[in-house]
Each structure stands twice: as structure tokens, then as C-alpha cells.
């Protein structure tokens, strides 16, 4: 069932997103029927999906929500903010369950309490009214409902019973359910009100108003025995395979055709009759009773002529009643087996294959080292042995690095996992602060390592809180600056080179630098002297300093005793940086620049000063040859003009400080790249091909080198240094 769990996770996340979108839209336009329908469907489909993976608690919780949405939909009432809030909470709970399933591969065992809480939230709201069992046209409507309610029991049941206890049963010292409890081989039970329930105020607790229907696997005689005292109030129907209709599924299906034909509606009647006849013919064929098809088809012809289902109904009734023993060849329907639940998550086959291949290579090295150990014992030449050991070590080193990355690549997740929780949070923040806020999420498909995705929630939450609380101005100020009353928070993710950049941007007033100076001085974060020496950006950066934000300053929304220093610390723990981009009057953005730790990159190889470099392909715009005399000195630097645009030119070897490259004589070979929105030309000695490389974390000498994303081994044994252009040019 692995693939079902996998598909479930994908689909459920989409549905949660859809449901959240719809509910948030309904908040703005409570009368939007399309959104309401869509929200209803999202809950409904989620419930169905939960059923398929046997996650009963989730199905139960969503059922409660769906009931209330359905009632609102049927009553054509507007949606209340309370309902939206409860719906969003339910979806949030679903997300937490999804995370748990993703982690363990199976539905959590302890979900019942949370499900109860959701059911309770919705229990206070008016749900769709419970309709009393409507009287159906055919005599055995109860049997049909019973077999429908227990589709899996139909094959095993031998007897179906309906017990309509007399209204005065209780006075006669009868307890109908106790009698039914005594029925052997009970498979399923249905309780229906004999008539629509009266109001509780008018309810007579001593009148029996229930009808009981049940399925049993016991022989009819035993069932009759158990119900002896009340047999006059009971109807029994044999379902045993030896009887006319064949196996129970077949009999139930024949009954169902009669019920369908019983619907008094001329519209589509001939179609319904034709399909009923076709189903009967199929059943007979399936039972190896094809000879009996002819009467059914004749009856259909009469029914179609008359525009009346009666002849066909009679023919089907005859099939059920006619005592024809099923032929020997009649195929027995298999007993359904319970669903298997999943135990694990599926991982891309390619990723597993990579691990298998690497394991094979490791085995080769293990054998080689074993061989070398043997030679040591035999007294082989130490120098030769040392050289070979070193070779093997080199191979092992490369493989370990690849293994590391192969394992990491299993851990990649889209940021949607963490972003998904914010629409509801932002809505609640806005409500509690009395600020209308709209959240815009961009790039949530961007992938990052699982550890990063999972570690992002806390710092992001804090930053988003701050943005709503401090970033966005109050309605009056916004109006005065000509901004729309609803504030905007953008939550954005983007892959930039070897990094994943995540930004929380508000369209508020921006950082008040003077105020930051004041606060920093008042709180002793920096002295007046230091402050005077700091640039504006330096001052803004103080927001991240320990002691800058304290509980006294922040409101109950932002204040959890956590300052922006904790945010920066969290981001740095993940190997990233946190910065603020300020646009006075227009807003501010907090930016996390995080490593994308699975370093599978497409690069273009180039050569400079005899060294092979990889330039991330996503940054490369084009390669050009520039005549030396077209290169212009700009101060100490150089530039060239390409299609009317002046582009700074850097010598790659110089920039890296590898060594002074030799004076070039002919045209400069230039890679034009886009870095942080700017075009830049990198002069290289030679252009290579394009390749996919798996980066190794940097070690030894290279570890301290700026502008290097990592290294990888080329086929010819040389080391390829993959550049991080953004860092290189900073």
C-alpha cells in the first residue's frame, strides 16, 4: 500500500491548500457559493482519502466539518467567521497528521483526542438534519440498505433480519437489542427510527421506536432459535449461496435493479431499464446461466415499448424467485480480505539505485583493502603498499562523499511543508491585532533539505509575527500614506545558486532607523559612540543583536521572550544568514539565506590558470569572445560593452586569488553571468562542457576559500571547483 500513502500525502496536501484558500476567500466574500462548494469538496475528498488509508480519526474529524459546511451550503446561509476559524483549525490539524504520516509512513495511533476536539468544535453548530429513513417503494428496502452499509459482509452473511419491535415492547419486559445480541454469528447491525424522531421534549422514553436490522453468518434455524420470543415481529431473508439469486452479491444486485426501476420518473427511464437489463444479463452470464438472458431481453423490449418498467421488473423478480440451483461452474466470489496498512514511505527508485551502486563500489574497495592487508602480512614492499593504500583511500574518500549526498537527496522536501501553515496563522494574527492582512506565498515548491524545512517554522513564525505586529502600520497611517487598508505579507522562497533564499516582506512603513538607534542605546546594545560610527545598514542589523527586543517592548503577539537574536541564531545553526532589507515608507523584508545542502548542481566547466572550475549553469547567460582592445579600464577595474550594455569584467583566476594568470594575447573568452540581478563577465582561459555534478563539502585548504560552493572529482581525476558566484562577487 506504499503508493497509496504516498499519493495520499500528495493529494491531501493539495486539498488542505485548496480548502485553506477557499476558507480565506470566503472570509472576504461569505456569499461566494463557488468557494463554498470548493471548500466543501476539499473536506469531502480529504475525508474519502482518509478512509482509503484506514485513518478513521481523520475521517471522523473531517466528517464533522463537512456536515456543518454541507448544512450551510444547503441552507444558502453565509459562512460565519467562527466556522472559517474552525475549518482552518481542522485543516491545520490535518497538516500535523500528514507530517506525522510522512515521518513514520503510517497514520498516527494517538489521533483520536485531536479528532474528538475537532468534532466537538463543530458539534455546537447546526449540522445537516438527520433524515428519517424514507419509505422505499420495494418491500426489501431495508435489506438493500443493510447490504449497502456492510458491503464487505455481504459475501459471508447467510441470513439478514429485520426486527420491528412492538411499541409496547419495554412494558412487556423485552429488551430488543439484548435479544439481537444473542443472535449467533452477528456481522453487522443497523438501527433506524421507526418514524422520524420527535423532539426530545415530546419523547416518550418507554415506547420502543427503533427498528433493528442485522446480518448473521449463522444458519437460519439458529437465528430463529435466538429470536424465538419475538419471531412474529421478525422477517428473515436467506442470503446463502445455495439460493436462487446465486451468491449474495448477485442477489443484492438483482434486488438493486428492481429498486432502481421502482423510481417513478419518466426522465431517463428507458436508459435505466436498458442498463438494468444489461446488468441482469451480465450477472446471469457471470453465474453461467446465460440461457435465462432471453426472457429478460424480451421483457426489456416490452417495457421499452410500453414505457413502463413493470414487465422488466417482473422478469427480474422471477430470476430471484425461480428456484434454479446455480450451476456447478458458478464461480464462488472470494471472501474480501481486510486492507493492509502501509508501513513505510516510498522513495524514488533512482535514489535507491544510486545507493545500491555506491554500495557496490564500496564493496570493491573493501576487497582491495583486504587484499592489501594480505600483502602486508606477506612482507610486501612498504612503499608500494603505501602508494596503493593511498589510492584506495582516495577512492573511499570520494565514495563517502557521494554516499553522503545520495543520502541527503532522499531528504529533500518542498518548502510548502512549512509555508502551508502560515495562511491560517497570519489570518489569526490579523484578527487578534485588528489589522486586515493578506498573505501572499511565492515559490513554495522550492526544495530544501528536510532539516532546513523542519527547522524553519519557529524562526519564520517569529518574523511573520513581527511583520504583522510591528511592520504593518495601523489603518489610519496606511490611509494617510495612500496604501490600501489591507496589509500585505509576502512569504517567498527562491533557489539562488547554492542557496535557498526565504523572505518575509511586508508593505508597511519600513524600519524606523532613528528609533532603532534610540532603542539600541537605551537598552545598552550599543554605545552612542558606536552608533554614530555605524552605517544605516549597520544600525538596522542591530535588530538582530541580543538584548535589542525584550518582552517589555513587544506586544502579547510578538512577545514570547524571543528576540530577533534567537531568529538569527536559529538560521545560523542551519548554516544560513539572516538579514534585513529596508525600504523606508514602503516596507521591510527579513531575508534568510540558507544552504541547499543537497548539492546536485548543473555546471558549465571552465578553465582558468590551469584549474578547472564549474560555473552554476542557472547563472550563465551566454559566452562571448571580446577583442582585447574593446575592454575598457574603469578605474582599477575593467568593463566591456555588449549590445549597448556595459558589463564589468573580472578575471576569474585573479578574483579567486589563485595566482596571477598569464597575460592574454588574443581575444578574451568571457562567461556572462547573472548574479544577484547584475550582469557580470568572467574571463576564463578555456570553455568546457556542461555536466551534472555532485558536490562534496569542502575540506582542507579549500574550506576557507571564499566563493566556492564545493568540489567534485572529474573523470580524469582532477578536482573541479564549483563556484558560488554571489559570494565570490560580494
Amino acid at each position, binding site marked *: 500500500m506504499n503508493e497509496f500513502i504516498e499519493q495520499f500525502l500528495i493529494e491531501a496536501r493539495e486539498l488542505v491548500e485548496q480548502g485553506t484558500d477557499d476558507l480565506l476567500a470566503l472570509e472576504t466574500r461569505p456569499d461566494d457559493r463557488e468557494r463554498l462548494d470548493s471548500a466543501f469538496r476539499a473536506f469531502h475528498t480529504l475525508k474519502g*482519502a482518509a478512509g482509503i488509508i484506514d485513518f478513521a480519526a481523520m475521517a471522523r474529524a473531517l466528517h464533522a466539518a463537512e456536515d456543518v459546511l454541507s448544512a450551510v451550503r444547503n441552507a444558502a446561509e453565509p459562512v460565519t467567521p467562527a466556522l472559517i476559524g474552525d475549518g482552518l483549525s481542522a485543516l491545520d490539524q490535518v497538516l500535523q497528521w500528514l507530517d506525522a504520516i510522512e515521518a513514520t509512513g503510517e497514520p498516527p495511533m494517538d489521533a483520536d483526542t485531536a479528532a474528538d476536539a475537532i468534532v466537538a468544535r463543530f458539534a455546537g453548530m447546526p449540522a445537516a438534519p438527520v433524515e428519517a429513513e424514507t419509505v422505499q417503494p420495494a418491500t426489501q428496502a431495508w435489506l438493500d*440498505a443493510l447490504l449497502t452499509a456492510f458491503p464487505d459482509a455481504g459475501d459471508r452473511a447467510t441470513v439478514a433480519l429485520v426486527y420491528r419491535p412492538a411499541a409496547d415492547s419495554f412494558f412487556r419486559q423485552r429488551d430488543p437489542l439484548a435479544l439481537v445480541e444473542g443472535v449467533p454469528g452477528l456481522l453487522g447491525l443497523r438501527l433506524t427510527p421507526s418514524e422520524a424522531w420527535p423532539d426530545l421534549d415530546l419523547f416518550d422514553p418507554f415506547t420502543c421506536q427503533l427498528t433493528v436490522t442485522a446480518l448473521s453468518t449463522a444458519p437460519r434455524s439458529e437465528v430463529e432459535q435466538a429470536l424465538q420470543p419475538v419471531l412474529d415481529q421478525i422477517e428473515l431473508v436467506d442470503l446463502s449461496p445455495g439460493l436462487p439469486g446465486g451468491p449474495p452479491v448477485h442477489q443484492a444486485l438483482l434486488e438493486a435493479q428492481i429498486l432502481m426501476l421502482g423510481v417513478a420518473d419518466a426522465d431517463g427511464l428507458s436508459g435505466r431499464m436498458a442498463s438494468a437489463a444489461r446488468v441482469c444479463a451480465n450477472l446471469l452470464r457471470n453465474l453461467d446461466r446465460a440461457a435465462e438472458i432471453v426472457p429478460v431481453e424480451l421483457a426489456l423490449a416490452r417495457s421499452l415499448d410500453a414505457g413502463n418498467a413493470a414487465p422488466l421488473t417482473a422478469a427480474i423478480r422471477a430470476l430471484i424467485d425461480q428456484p434454479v440451483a446455480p450451476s456447478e461452474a458458478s464461480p464462488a466470489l472470494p471472501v474480501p480480505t481486510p486492507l493492509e496498512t502501509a508501513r513505510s514511505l516510498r522513495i524514488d527508485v533512482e535514489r535507491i539505485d544510486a545507493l545500491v551502486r555506491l554500495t557496490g563500489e564500496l564493496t570493491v574497495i573493501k576487497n582491495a583493502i583486504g587484499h592489501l592487508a594480505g600483502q602486508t602480512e606477506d612482507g610486501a614492499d612498504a612503499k608500494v603498499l603505501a602508494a596503493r593504500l593511498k589510492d584506495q583511500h582516495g577512492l573511499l574518500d570520494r565514495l563517502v562523499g557521494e554516499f553522503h549526498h545520495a543520502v541527503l537527496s532522499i531528504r529533500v522536501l518542498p518548502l510548502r511543508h512549512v509555508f502551508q501553515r502560515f495562511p491560517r496563522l497570519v489570518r489569526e494574527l490579523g484578527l487578534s491585532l485588528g489589522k486586515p492582512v493578506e498573505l501572499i506565498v511565492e515559490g513554495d515548491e522550492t526544495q530544501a533539505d528536510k532539516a532546513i524545512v523542519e527547522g524553519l517554522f519557529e524562526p519564520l513564525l517569529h518574523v511573520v509575527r513581527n511583520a504583522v505586529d510591528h511592520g504593518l502600520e495601523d489603518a489610519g497611517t496606511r490611509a494617510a500614506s495612500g496604501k490600501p487598508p489591507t496589509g500585505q505579507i509576502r512569504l517567498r522562497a527562491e533557489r539562488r545558486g547554492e542557496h535557498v533564499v526565504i523572505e518575509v516582506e511586508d508593505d508597511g512603513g519600513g524600519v524606523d532607523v532613528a528609533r532603532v538607534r534610540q532603542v539600541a542605546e537605551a537598552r545598552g546594545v550599543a554605545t552612542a559612540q558606536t552608533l554614530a560610527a555605524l552605517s544605516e545598514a549597520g544600525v538596522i542589523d542591530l535588530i538582530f543583536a541580543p538584548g535589542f527586543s525584550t518582552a517589555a517592548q513587544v506586544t502579547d503577539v510578538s512577545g514570547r521572550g524571543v528576540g530577533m537574536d534567537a531568529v538569527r541564531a536559529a538560521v545560523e545553526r542551519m548554516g544560513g544568514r539572516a538579514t534585513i532589507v529596508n525600504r523606508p515608507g514602503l516596507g521591510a523584508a527579513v531575508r534568510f539565506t540558507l544552504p541547499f545542502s543537497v548539492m546536485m548542481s548543473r555546471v558549465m566547466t571552465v578553465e582558468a590558470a590551469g584549474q578547472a572550475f564549474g560555473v552554476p549553469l542557472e547563472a550563465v547567460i551566454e559566452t562571448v569572445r571580446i577583442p582585447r582592445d574593446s575592454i575598457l579600464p574603469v578605474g582599477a577595474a575593467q568593463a566591456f560593452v555588449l549590445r549597448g550594455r556595459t558589463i564589468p569584467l573580472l578575471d576569474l583566476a585573479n578574483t579567486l586569488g589563485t595566482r596571477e594568470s598569464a597575460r592574454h594575447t588574443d581575444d578574451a573568452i568571457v562567461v556572462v553571468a547573472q548574479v544577484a540581478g547584475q550582469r557580470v563577465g568572467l574571463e576564463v582561459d578555456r570553455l568546457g562542457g556542461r555536466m551534472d555534478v555532485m558536490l562534496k563539502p569542502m575540506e582542507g585548504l579549500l574550506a576557507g576559500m571564499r566563493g566556492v560552493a564545493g568540489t567534485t572529482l572529474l573523470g580524469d581525476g582532477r578536482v573541479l571547483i564549483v563556484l558560488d558566484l554571489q559570494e565570490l562577487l560580494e
Partner: protein
Amino acid sequence: MLTPSSTNGRRRARVVDADKPRVLVVDDASLVRLYYRDALEAAGFQVDEAINGLEALEKLLLAPVDLLVVDVNMPRMDGLTFVQTLRRQPMELASIPVLMTSTEAGAQDIAAARAAGANVYLVKPLAQETLADYARALSGASA
């Protein structure tokens, strides 16, 4: 069933499966479609999918099937409307057996499915074996 255009390559590929009964699963939830496909293919059916009633009608007009497995609640065209529409088509289409499934178990839901023209109505979740049993019985496929 061979179609007149069976000389072209794509059609010929279909002839290979001509012995298999064909079923169209109509459900907006991809998980449900996957789950049904898995069960029905194992039971020897050739399975096609549609995500709502409209798409199902379009597919049926191109090539009728031996059985329809239809969900009730779907966007654009729900299952009840779809089956009602189906039953008004020419006999070749109108007579296709319909197995309707839904999470709703109320008497009024069953009655609505009947009135629309569903041959049988089963409550989800449905064990794969059960679906396969009903599908074989309804389509006349040998077990």
C-alpha cells in the same frame, strides 16, 4: 470490440486488450482513482480515468466502456448529474452499468443515486476485493 479505424497504429495497440472488459473510473480524487485502478487492473480490467462527469461523457462519446465506477461529489459535473445525462443517451451508452460510490450512507443518498440511474450504490471506503467482485458481476466478466 474492433473499431473501423483499427488499421492505424494507435488503435491496433488497443486491440491487444480487446478481450479485457473496459471500465472508466470517474472520481476527482487521484488517490481514489489510483486505488480503484489498482484493484480493477488486478481483476483483469482495462482501466481509464476521468476527473468529473463532463470529462467522462467526452471519453464515453469517443469509446463506450463495459462499466462505469462513479463518485457522487465532483466539481464541474457531479456523479448524479452525469448518470442522469448518461441514461438519456442512445442505448449503447445509456445501458452501461454504473457502480456509484460515495462516503454517504444515508437512505436519501442511496435513493438519489437510484433515481439518477445507478445500478448499485456502495459506501466508501470500499475494500479492493469488494470493488473487484462487484465490477466483475456488473460487467459480466468471468471471475
